[in-house]
């Protein structure tokens, strides 16, 4: 049943071995760095985004063509998101938010192509992205506000004697952000792709059961078609959610008072 194994699509394999760190030279020892299929699709995602943005805005025409219009709409969309969530001061983080949004969006869309690998279905990738956001917030918050950044953990109007309880809760709530951010994206994409694969697997197994099976396999087929549409939606929505939450967390770094 290798064809209908719902987990098989997430396997990472080496395309080209680069070099090995440590180990005693024997096979399987040390840490091997390799160019994997995951890396390939990350490079493809970055290449698609960069090439599209560079080529579509290269003409710089006052009346935009189709490609340039899409690029401008995308810019306006993300710029509005940053301004409404983090204020005009947040616009210095526009490149970060725009890169994150387009990377996740294009990676999710690429993942919907049959036989393609979905980069965001691995939690280490989404966790790295969310740690990037988290560390940006922490470092920028401390650089800009100094110790005042710690006010984030002290909600205004709380009497002093409750603070020993409230401050750790706020701290845990703050620390849980990168986890919830990464798990949400990873979970949505993983669950969606597994569901899709399971339902399409049903079609294969049922249609091997003879005439009635072929008739019955229409049901999972309808389901799979609906799920495909849903997955495109989920991929876009999750990219949007990730970007919006990034803006909101950046807002905390820029204006730390609650």
């Amino acid at each position, binding site marked *: 049943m290798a064809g209908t194994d719902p987990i098989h699509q997430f396997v990472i394999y080496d395309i080209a071995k680069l070099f090995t760190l440590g180990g005693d030279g024997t096979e399987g020892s040390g840490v091997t760095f390799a160019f994997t299929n995951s890396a390939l699709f990350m490079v493809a995602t970055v290449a698609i985004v960069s090439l599209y943005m560079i080529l579509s805005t290269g003409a710089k025409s006052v009346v935009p063509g189709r490609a340039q219009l899409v690029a401008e709409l995308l810019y306006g969309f993300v710029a509005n998101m940053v301004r409404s969530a983090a204020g005009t001061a947040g616009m210095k983080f526009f490149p970060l938010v725009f890169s994150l949004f387009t990377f996740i969006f294009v990676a999710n869309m690429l993942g919907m192509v049959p036989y393609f690998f979905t980069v965001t279905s691995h939690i280490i990738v989404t966790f790295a992205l969310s740690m990037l956001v988290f560390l940006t917030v922490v470092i920028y918050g401390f650089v800009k506000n100094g110790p005042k950044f710690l006010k984030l953990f002290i909600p205004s109007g709380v009497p002093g004697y409750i603070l020993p309880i409230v401050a*750790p809760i*706020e701290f*845990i709530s703050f*620390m*849980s952000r990168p986890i*919830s951010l990464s798990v949400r994206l990873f979970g*949505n994409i993983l669950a969606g792709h597994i569901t899709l694969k399971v339902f399409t697997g049903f079609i294969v197994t049922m249609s091997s059961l003879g005439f009635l099976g072929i008739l019955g396999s229409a049901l999972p087929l309808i389901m799979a078609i609906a799920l495909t549409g849903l997955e495109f939606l*989920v991929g876009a*929505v999750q990219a949007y*959610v990730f970007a919006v939450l990034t803006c909101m967390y950046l807002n905390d770094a820029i204006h730390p008072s609650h």
Partner: protein
Amino acid sequence: MAKPQDNQGQQHGAREVTRDLASRIASAKREREIEDNRASRDASQEMTGLGRGLRIGTEFIAAILVGAVIGYLIDLGLGTSPWGLLVMLLMGFAAGILNVTRVVAQMNAASPAPPGSDLGPDEQDEDDNDDA
């Protein structure tokens, strides 16, 4: 000397045309805003029911996990097992509830109830009941 008058007349006409155009643009903008609002409200209600559920769930569980990990690290460092884990797990639980209330408050603020919707009984309703 007929020219200035002529010009004035033209200006007058042009001003009227501009005013007309401005009001037309304003009304079109208003319509579009209403349309946009309705579209976004529909979208947030219909399509992301699953997304909302997952969002609340992850916020809740992530806080508990972080609390447990912090407690475990405290235990490892200070050798106070199992008290650090127990206390921080409960703290994480509280933080999870805090996260969830924040997310839900934010969602409520993002999509307020449409005007005219029934938000439970209020004074007017009671008056109606009295009349009936």
